């Protein structure tokens, strides 16, 4: 290595470090990929909220859809609720998991604020949440037409998240499932 190049070594190292750290600023460390990505939903059989029927993973197969984990004790869920209603009005299928919640409180919430969900799975003990790797509501899973998990978003789904992340993926899954 020439002495001239050696002189620039600290500068080069500094630049590399600066680039790495700068990239780190834009990353969200709390966002981690789900272990279920590209794998089918775990099998389950749980009661439906407000109905005397049992629901299974097969009930969500048939079209790409959103699976939203929510609870009445979850403050951020109240924040995203109006936007979920908008999406439902646009015809996006949304299924709900009422996670570690009280059925009566959840029913009251839906009556009061409106119901964007096709149906709600009453996961009172959080067993389905555990199998999904849920670590805090709200979480939203994007499912393809075969019921395979394609994406997981942790946190509130708002216009920005939908437009930039979920909608492109959703449209892609939709064209793929409509094609054959």
């Amino acid at each position, binding site marked *: 290595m020439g002495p001239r190049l050696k002189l620039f070594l600290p500068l080069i190292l500094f630049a590399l470090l600066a680039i790495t750290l700068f990239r780190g600023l834009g990353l969200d*460390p709390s966002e*981690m990929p789900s*272990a279920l990505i590209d794998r089918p939903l775990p099998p389950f059989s749980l009661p439906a909220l407000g109905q005397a029927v049992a629901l299974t993973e097969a009930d969500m197969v048939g079209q790409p859809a959103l699976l939203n984990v929510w609870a009445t004790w979850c403050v951020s869920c109240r924040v995203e609720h109006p936007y979920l209603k908008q999406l439902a009005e646009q015809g996006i299928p949304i299924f709900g998991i009422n996670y*570690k919640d009280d059925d009566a409180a959840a029913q009251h919430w839906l009556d009061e604020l409106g119901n964007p969900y096709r149906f709600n799975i009453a996961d009172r003990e959080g067993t389905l949440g555990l199998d999904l*790797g*849920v670590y805090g509501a709200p979480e939203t899973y994007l499912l393809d037409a075969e019921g395979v998990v394609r994406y997981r978003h942790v946190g509130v789904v708002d216009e920005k998240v939908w437009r930039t992340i979920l909608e492109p993926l959703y449209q892609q899954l939709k064209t793929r499932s409509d094609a054959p």
Partner: protein
Amino acid sequence: MRLLRLLLVITLALVAGPALALIETYEFSKPELEARYQQLSEELRCPKCQNQNIADSNAPIAQDLRRLLHQQLEQGASDAEIRNYMVARYGEFVRYRPRFGGATAILWLAPVLLLIAGIAVLLLTLRSRSTRTTVSGAAGLSAQEQERLRSLLERAEQDA
């Protein structure tokens, strides 16, 4: 006396914090299970509060995972089975001691590689320093150069 009492109160207040943090205790059928519970709950990371293990965290998810850990230990699951169960749901992320391979390879290898790089830099610096001193010493000059050096020094003396 009053000062002493105040100090005592402050000390007790500081000590009482961790005691409050302990929220639930589990009964184990065998003491061996309890030891494994301690070890595993310190090795598993809380997915919600990422800088704590599930033993230290009070997050609801950490409580759930502790309850699950207790259940599985009592049901006779092995350590490997429990780890695999957690990893299948929360990813390699839940382990403070991730298995080697793929994305975690850099975690395991980086310290060794950095140590090797450090030693290499140290050796190179030491060697270049020792060669430089021999070259710049008087021994590094040829007979002709030494002659020239002497004549230059003499001329300088005459000029002065």
